[in-house]
Structure formats: structure tokens, C-alpha cells
């Protein structure tokens, strides 16, 4: 259970990073080389849901593991854990944020665009917290392969966020700038 809990946590961290990258790409309105926009959007959703599945494995396995000493309250309330409470608490914070993002994502048509979008922005807060939890709480969070993976995904996400904030982010950005406030049909 212990090993499985760690491996699934690592997998979830990678999938969450991929999901953030795909989410930013979705927002740009661009296709991914040959992959149409619709597929990028669906891939973003499916990778996110896979991250959730691995997260359920991760938390479930460690709840069952006697060595981890994780309690049900730790899943909802941060910083009360017995093992590295601060870093474990970050995991709880990330989990609760992700739960909000996923539930509102699935209910988007029900709750409306504004609420969905406001909550979805929490992803940007959730991701660094999840990464910090991986490194700080993982038994081999500072081992070479984990650090290498964290460096790779961090560089990718930071670059994607920089791109997100740059002027040329939208597929139609150039034309829209050229013509000032663009004209809607």
C-alpha cells in the first residue's frame, strides 16, 4: 500500500501538470499541431479526470496503510496530520482545491460560466501547492528522478503561464490587435 500510494501520487502530479498545460493550450484556442481544438479540450478534461483517479488511489492507499497514519479528517482539514503535518497539509489544500475545480467543471452547464471560471482559476493556486506537497512530503521527494520530473514540469508550466500572459497568446491575437477592439459579426 505504501509503495502504491507513493507511485500513484507521483502519477497524479504528472497528470495534473499535463492537465494545466493542456488547459492553457485550450484557452489559447489553438490546435495542437494535428490535434483539433475539440480534441485538445477533451484531452484536457480526460487527463484531469485521470489525475483525479490516481489521486483517489493515492489518498485511498495511504488511508489504508498503517505506516502512513493518515486519518479521514486529514483528507478535508489541512495541517493536522501526524507525519510532516505542514507538507501533508499542502496535499490536503491541493486536494480540496482540485475537488472544487473538478466538481464545478463537471457541472459547468448547471452553474453557469461565471462561477465555473472563477473556481477554475483556483487551478493556478492548486498546482504549485500540489508540487510543493510532492517534494516536501514524498518519501523520495528529493531523490534525483522525482526532482528531475518536478523541474521538467515546472519549467513547462511556468513557460506556459508566461505564454498565457503574453500579448500573442490567443490564436487570433494578431488580427485582434491590428484592428483595435475587434468587431463581432
Amino acid at each position, binding site marked *: 500500500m505504501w509503495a502504491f500510494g507513493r507511485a500513484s501520487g507521483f502519477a497524479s502530479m504528472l497528470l495534473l501538470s499535463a492537465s494545466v498545460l493542456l488547459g492553457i493550450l485550450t484557452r489559447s*484556442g489553438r490546435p495542437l499541431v494535428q490535434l483539433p481544438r475539440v480534441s485538445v479540450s477533451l484531452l484536457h478534461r480526460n487527463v484531469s479526470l485521470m489525475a483525479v483517479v490516481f489521486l483517489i488511489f493515492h489518498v485511498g492507499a495511504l488511508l489504508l496503510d498503517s505506516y502512513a497514519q493518515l486519518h479521514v479528517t486529514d483528507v478535508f482539514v489541512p495541517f493536522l496530520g501526524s507525519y510532516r503535518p505542514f507538507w501533508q497539509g499542502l496535499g490536503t489544500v491541493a486536494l480540496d482545491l482540485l475537488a472544487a475545480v473538478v466538481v464545478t467543471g463537471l457541472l459547468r452547464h448547471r452553474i453557469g460560466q461565471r462561477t465555473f471560471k472563477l473556481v477554475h482559476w483556483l487551478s493556478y493556486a492548486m498546482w504549485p501547492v500540489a508540487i510543493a506537497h510532492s517534494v516536501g512530503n514524498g518519501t523520495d521527494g528529493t531523490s534525483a528522478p522525482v526532482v528531475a520530473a518536478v523541474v521538467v514540469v515546472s519549467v513547462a508550466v511556468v513557460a506556459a503561464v508566461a505564454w498565457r500572459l503574453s500579448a500573442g497568446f490567443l490564436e487570433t491575437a494578431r488580427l485582434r490587435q491590428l484592428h483595435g477592439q475587434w468587431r463581432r459579426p
Partner: protein
Amino acid sequence: MSADSRREAAARLHIDWTRCDGRGLCAELLPEALSRDDWGFPLAAPGRLAVDADKSNVPLKHSELGAAADAVKLCPVLALRLARP
């Protein structure tokens, strides 16, 4: 679509222009019904609409209803709605 087939439209795809951000998913899913203008906004494909018709309600064929339902579901800003013809 001719004037006749327009009357036979299976449904209409209503585009809410106050919301649409021109992200182009709908035009990918409905390549025969929609094209995109230079700004990325969806436009009824040539011949779909009468010259003076309402551009916010694009008539759809029966065979396009599935893809249109997907577009309504996937539009990133919830700008699409299916309306009766």
C-alpha cells in the same frame, strides 16, 4: 442550403454573440454549417442563410444534430444553444 431546405432545417444553432469568444470549436465540429471569419468568430457557411437572415441562428440539417449537441456541450464559454427551427 436552398430556400426550401432552409424551411426543413432540423434545428437552429443559436450563437450568443455577447459570450462567444471565437475559439473555433463549433466550426471544427460543424465544418459544413460554420466557417470562421478572420477574427475566429463562427459564421454560417456560404449559402446557409438568406442574405437578410438572422446570423445568430444557423439552420442545421438532421445529420448535424449530434455534432451540434457536442458543440453546445463543448463551447468553452457556453455561447451556444440549440433552438427549434
